[in-house]
């Protein structure tokens, strides 16, 4: 469904709602486009005129600092006018529905909405109801999808390990609540990763995840054995409520990436995390900024990848240079 909604009849990006349904060539094209932005940024000036005269609204119904910032920077570097709106869930309960919010904004001649919302399917909902000339970019909907995060993760992996068919990737932690994990799984599968593993206690592994093409491990050491890339997920502290876990300490003991655990793995293993990290929970503090960690690279690449997606949707350019 998402593929028919987010693609034009010619197979170009109309919205970006989910990684699911993207073809390998299209996904690769996004990464290639991002590559150009990443290169250009270092050599020539930072601004591109591609979205000059376009208006991008960051519509965040869920608190976010870094994701919203990178979307804002990406839009500004493409010369778009940017508006940031942080809407508390409570204000939409004052009688105005989500649809009212969208329609009100649309009336202001907005070209693209970057939307984050706590409900899975929110981006699809907006795309279904948006006017034909308005594009929706999903910046995270509930547990469902966070496609630009997956794209920047793939971008980062590709820079170090260009051949996905040789990769075994272990995604570790709270898979159940993670839209990042779901989008990464789709992306890795589309790009042909050799093996995708999810690792975590059974309380945090959702039923039927195997159908997404992953192998489940409930033990970290066996899950990391032979892995080329380790993708850690942020563990929300509130998971102690509701009996998912006894404590962050016990989670760290069993599923935290410690220097000692890392030392047992081959030196070329890559460590990734979507941020913000919980030091001493899913990752030991000094591992986060070690030479094997790509965490800061991920943040940097987030801008180029988001520029690529915005340019491809609004600029409708296959190649941007």
């Amino acid at each position, binding site marked *: *469904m*998402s593929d028919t*909604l987010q693609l034009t009849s010619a197979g170009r990006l109309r919205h970006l709602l989910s990684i*699911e349904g993207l073809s390998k060539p299209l996904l690769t094209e996004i990464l290639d486009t991002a590559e150009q932005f990443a290169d250009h940024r270092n050599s020539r000036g930072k601004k591109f005129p591609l979205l000059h005269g376009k208006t991008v609204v960051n519509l965040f119904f869920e608190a976010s600092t870094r994701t919203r910032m990178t979307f804002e920077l990406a839009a500004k570097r493409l010369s778009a006018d940017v508006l940031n709106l942080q809407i508390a869930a409570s204000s939409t309960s004052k009688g105005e*529905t*989500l*649809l009212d919010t969208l329609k009100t904004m649309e009336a202001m001649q907005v070209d693209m909405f970057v939307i984050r*919302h706590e*409900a*899975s*399917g*929110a981006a*699809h*909902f907006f795309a279904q*109801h948006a006017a034909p000339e308005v594009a929706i970019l999903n910046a995270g*909907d*509930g*547990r*469902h*999808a966070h496609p630009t995060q997956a794209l920047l993760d793939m971008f980062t992996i590709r820079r170090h390990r260009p051949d996905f068919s040789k990769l075994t990737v272990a995604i570790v932690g709270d898979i159940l609540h993670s*839209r990042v994990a*779901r989008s990464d799984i789709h992306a890795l599968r589309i790009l042909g990763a050799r093996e995708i593993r999810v690792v975590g206690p059974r309380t945090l592994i*959702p*039923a*039927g*995840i*195997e*159908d*997404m093409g992953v192998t489940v491990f409930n033990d970290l050491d066996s899950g990391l054995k032979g892995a080329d890339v380790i993708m850690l997920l942020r563990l929300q502290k509130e998971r102690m409520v509701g009996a998912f876990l006894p404590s962050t300490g016990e989670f760290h003991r069993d599923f935290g990436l410690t220097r000692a655990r890392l030392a047992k793995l081959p030196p070329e293993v890559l460590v990734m995390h979507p941020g913000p990290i919980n030091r001493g929970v899913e990752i030991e503090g000094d591992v986060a900024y070690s030479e094997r960690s790509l965490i800061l690279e991920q943040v940097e690449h987030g801008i180029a990848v988001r520029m690529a997606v915005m340019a491809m949707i609004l600029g409708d350019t296959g190649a941007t240079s």
Partner: protein
Amino acid sequence: MSATLIRNVRRLDPLAGTDSVGDLAFRNGVIVDPAQGAFDEVIDGIGHWLLPGIVDLCARTRDPGATQKGTMRSESNAAFASGITALCLPPDTRPVIDNTAVVIRVNRIAKAAGGAYVYMLGALTKGLEGEALAEISALKSAGCVGVTNGLTPVANALVARRALEYAASLGMTVHVVPLDAALANHGCAHEGAVATRLGLASIPVAAEAVAMRQWISLVEDTGARVHFGRLSSARGVELLAAAKARGLPITADVAAHQLFLTDAALEGFNALAHVIPPLRSADDRTALREAVGSGLIGAICSDHQPHELDAKTNPLPLTEPGISAVETLLPLGLRLVHDGLLSPLALAERLVHGPVQVLGLPGRGLAIGAAADLCLVDPAREWRLDAAGMKSVGRNTPFIGEAFRGRATRVWRG
């Protein structure tokens, strides 16, 4: 004052257990000898089926309390036009049907509305809050045909046990929608690959099984009559079969949509398929269909829940669950016949006789002297469900746009 003769019609009488072609006549709301007297209207029944009016075990009219979703007039008439001559209203109206004043009020609204006859289930607990028993004896005297706590949980097993004992001593059946609230955990989809991929909070099959096991244990203790409504899973069917095999006084129904749809209907975040209990896997659907075929599940209901457009205009997890379903109950039932799962007579049993037995109502048949509550069906009529043509205020159904074969063409209430 009218007299009608239907000639050469296939008469499906679930009370007598007969399926025969012949004439049927009624005069002033009572079935009479077709060979005697003159008739105002003579209908050619060739190719048509005639069955007693359908009794829907669970249909919400939203009235009183939520008339933006539907009114007694709109919903009972939508039901009636679709062959349902009596429906059973659960007590989760506003105000809740937990005292005789509300029963009287609903009866008055229903009488003025016309359409299908409205039976009521009374609340099992005061305000459906799950803590204190409602005045079940008074509710029975006022005409309630059973009691239920609907989709809201009873506080604990002790309250449940006492409620069963109390209802049993009055001869009242307790209707239970088996769904453990803690396990359901505000989910909106069946726990499985679809919910996982879409990132939807899920409801495991165990939510149904755990609730059924608890109620079955309490039936073993008390001997009270329990009706499980809206079964959704293969494990639920197994538990029902085992309980019935032990001779426990337990019956069950299933909502018609559960016999056709699975969680795959949620793809693309289709809020019209958001329903509680959730649409489950293909294996669950198969088990439910087999149980309807064998008669283990003796009744099919609509679980009609009309909504205004806004209730479904949101990201799926934020939408209100429920399907507007009275207008597809018989058409979906006819699909079961076309699929070879049920004979026409067996369909009449699931839509009329099974529900009548659950509610403890007098049998509904086609014998001379019986009330002329009748539904004439053209089983071959091809039509398409389009929103504009719906009589219910709620157009919230995942079957919009689908082709159907067969529907009620005339309906009479005796």
